[in-house]
């Protein structure tokens, strides 16, 4: 392939550090071959963990238990508020407690297939193996999973899986899992093993002697900027869906930590892979600040429809049955309303693009429980979905028992992230990345209930095992306060902060972020085209110039300054957005969450191109244009097939 105007192609990635041998033995082998650190020496080794979500809290707690000296950071006021707290549906594990034919191999198979053959077999298999230990660990911590009357754990089938392997705690699984990890973390804080710093934001990575050795952080309350040096740095800083401004992510989610590491040399892989969730509450106006997810389980009983006729603005109750288009049931008779997230999302966009959308701006489709209420009775529907209905009513002011819900897709999860090898180490030695922040084991698409699994797998089980191999070479030499690399990192932070505070602008940070998000949603959202992406790259560059000219950040740097925090994050989102568009542009195939209009089958379904694109796109930062490094993907155990939900 020839080089694009927007990027250069560099050397392929040769080594992912994955052990050889039969897939079911690789993780065993890796654990055995990795060097260990003698317990007495662990106390001399320092590890920084940035992030306190499922990945960060579990990693920090476990490393603390092992005896390393851990420094843990988050930008919220408490580790318990990390965005993982918001996950609703559940967590997968191949326990086969239902005797319905589940196994590690089946979970592995489903996840590789669900990722549309853009993930690594070795990693996914490890994830499936570890999944069972995660449930054991969480139960031991007292996580109150849903139970059967016999006292054993309950499971449900989630996101169209054929087996019941999803463990859940009502609609608050992420909350309960995170509280378990948070409590384990606080126990280590009390024991003196973990030094916790809340309301601190990492603004720069310190790389010296070819290794990641520390971070520069700003105390968000006092504004003080300090440096922490350690033997290894773990980033568990979550996903970057907020580049779209409107998403289901918490307002604070950002790419800054990853992006700063990227600019220091860490590869950023598959940035364009974003997951769009089909059942979110539609936008209600310009004031909208985020979108709220309605659990996917609603599609089990709700029927999705729009008026058959364009511009039909009758109230939903007045549209007779014959004039309704149950488009998912019509187009995908086998799966109906339960087609995977990407398909349901795109289908909703398609009908709205035809002018058949409902609600403000025509951006919504009905999710109708009328038939379910007739069939099961209102009480049964209430017992199942009551809390979701209440939430819907609170937000929209409409009663979903009487009027169908309106839903619309929204950005939900980012499969891309910093590139890591099998050991979760980035290409920068000493920089490890866990959870949603790495480019993840999910490939081009993520099945429901698998991100929680990955976060905890990385944090509790994988990272603590693999990092010892790296730390066995430590402690590394001291980095003095006036070391040039350290001073340079601090100077860069200073420069950026001073720039924002000193800029004589007239537009707010949010106004830029909202506009950037609009561009991304339009051109790098559910459906992407060559032409659109090229246009977006130009628009982003122009908007970024304007941002630097016109952004206004009030206040000073020596206080709690929420606008200053946002400004730095949005600045990084601009650079990320451009890379996402370049990545999406170069990947001229449709796969998983990435739908390229030019690559579809005759009947409008995604067409993957394994010939040309069966690789991980790992991008290296360069001032002129990013450099693409390909990591070829090999499939020995699961044969790539085209997905079909007809």
């Amino acid at each position, binding site marked *: 392939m020839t080089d694009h105007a927007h990027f250069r192609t560099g050397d392929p990635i040769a080594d992912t550090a994955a052990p050889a041998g039969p897939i079911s033995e690789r993780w065993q082998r890796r654990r055995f071959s990795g060097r260990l650190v003698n317990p007495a020496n662990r106390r001399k080794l320092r590890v920084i963990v940035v992030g306190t979500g499922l990945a960060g809290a579990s990693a920090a707690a476990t490393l603390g238990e092992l005896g390393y*000296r851990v420094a843990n950071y988050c930008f919220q006021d408490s580790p318990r508020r990390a965005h993982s707290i918001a996950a609703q549906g559940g967590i997968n594990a191949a326990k086969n407690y239902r005797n319905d034919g589940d196994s590690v191999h089946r979970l592995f198979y489903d996840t590789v297939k669900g990722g549309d053959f853009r993930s690594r077999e070795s990693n996914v298999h490890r994830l499936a193996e570890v999944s069972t230990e995660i449930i054991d660990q969480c139960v031991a911590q007292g996580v109150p999973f849903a139970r059967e009357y016999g006292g054993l754990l309950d499971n449900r089938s989630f996101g169209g899986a054929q087996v019941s392997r999803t463990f859940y705690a009502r609609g608050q699984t992420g909350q309960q899992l995170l509280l378990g990890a948070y409590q384990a973390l606080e126990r280590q804080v009390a024991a*003196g093993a973990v*030094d916790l710093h809340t309301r601190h934001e990492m603004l720069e990575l310190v790389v010296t002697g070819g290794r990641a050795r520390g971070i520069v952080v700003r105390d968000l309350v006092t*504004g003080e900027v*300090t440096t922490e040096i350690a033997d290894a740095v773990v980033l568990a800083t979550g996903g970057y869906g907020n580049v779209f401004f409107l998403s289901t992510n918490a307002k604070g989610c950002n790419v800054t930590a990853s992006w700063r590491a990227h600019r220091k040399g860490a590869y950023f892989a598959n940035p364009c892979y974003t997951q769009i969730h089909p059942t979110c509450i539609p936008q209600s106006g310009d004031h909208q600040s985020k979108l709220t997810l309605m659990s996917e389980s609603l599609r089990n009983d709700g029927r999705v429809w729009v008026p058959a006729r364009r511009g039909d603005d009758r109230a939903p109750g007045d549209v007779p049955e014959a004039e309704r288009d149950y488009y998912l049931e019509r187009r995908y008779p086998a799966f109906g309303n339960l087609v995977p997230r990407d398909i349901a999302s795109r289908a909703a966009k398609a009908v709205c693009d035809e002018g058949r959308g409902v609600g403000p701006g025509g951006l919504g489709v009905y999710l109708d429980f009328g038939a379910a209420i007739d069939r099961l009775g209102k009480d049964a529907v209430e017992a199942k979905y009551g809390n979701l209905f209440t939430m819907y009513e609170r937000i929209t002011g409409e009663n979903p028992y009487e009027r169908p819900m309106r839903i619309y897709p929204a950005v939900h999860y980012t499969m891309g992230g910093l590139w890591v090898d099998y050991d979760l180490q980035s290409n920068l030695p000493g920089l490890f990345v866990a959870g949603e922040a790495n480019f993840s084991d999910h490939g081009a698409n993520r099945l429901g209930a698998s991100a929680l699994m990955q976060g905890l797998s990385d944090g509790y089980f994988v990272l603590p095992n693999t990092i010892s191999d790296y730390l066995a070479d430590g402690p590394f030499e001291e980095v003095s306060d006036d070391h040039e690399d350290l001073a340079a990192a601090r100077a860069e932070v*200073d420069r950026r*902060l001073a720039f924002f505070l000193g800029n004589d602008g007239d537009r707010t940070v949010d106004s830029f972020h909202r506009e950037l998000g609009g561009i991304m949603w339009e051109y790098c959202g559910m459906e992407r085209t060559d032409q659109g992406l090229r246009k977006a790259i130009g628009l982003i560059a122009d908007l970024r110039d304007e941002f630097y000219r016109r952004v206004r950040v009030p206040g000073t740097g020596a206080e709690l300054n929420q606008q200053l925090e946002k400004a730095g994050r949005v600045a990084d989102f601009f650079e990320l957005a451009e890379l996402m568009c370049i990545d999406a542009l170069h990947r001229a195939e449709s796969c998983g969450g990435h739908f390229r209009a030019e690559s579809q089958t005759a009947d409008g379904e995604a067409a993957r191109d394994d010939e040309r694109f069966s690789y991980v796109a790992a991008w290296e930062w360069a001032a002129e244009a990013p450099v693409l490094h390909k990591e070829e993907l090999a499939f020995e155990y699961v044969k790539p097939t085209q997905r079909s939900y007809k």
Partner: protein
Amino acid sequence: MSTELRSRPAASGPAAGAGHAPRWRSSIGLKIIMAVSGIALVGFIVAHMAGNLHVFEGPERMNEYAEGLRTFGEPLLPRESLLWAMRLGLIAAAAAHIASSVALTRRASRARPVKYASRKAARGEAAHAAATMRWGAIVIAAFVVWHLLDLTFRAVNPVKDVPDAYGAVVATFAPERWPVTVFYLAALVALGFHLRHGIWSAVQTIAGPSAVWRRRWRAAALVTAVTVVAGFAAVPLAVSFGLVS
């Protein structure tokens, strides 16, 4: 803005040997003391209220009752044994009750150093309790002081003859001394509110009932409070309106 490097001290465990405060001085310990002593006071109040109803049986029976309290156990026990045993118990309970409530009230005011600029009426299972408990307690305390000077020590009572409890009661609520009667009635209302919350609250503190039982206990507390107030109020009202003289 400074980017001065500040090296962090190594993580250290919690201060060793910090020592525990005695458990009964903890917030829950104090609350249990308040509840137990409160229940003892409730026992006294109910008995006292029932005893007062002897007034309606005439001076002889009433004074007999009062004398009975003093001669209980004679000649085996010295005079006023029962009375003093009761009084000691009462003083201990009152002291514990007041001390624990003062300690908790002081903690509470330290925990809310800045007041709300805007404060809406309380909600919840025990709405208004906070407002009535502490002010009510002060009224009750003032009342008890007056009441002891009045009917126990007779310092402010026209009838100084101790065995004549009946005469003292009739004298204190004489129609022309109506402000005394009004003060008594006001104190009884405060007591009623105090009991309405207090009895339920003590049960909640000691037994921790479920939501259903909390509702039942609240009803029981209300019934007790009303009974106590009505039983006590009957005496001054009867005297004031000349039903008893």
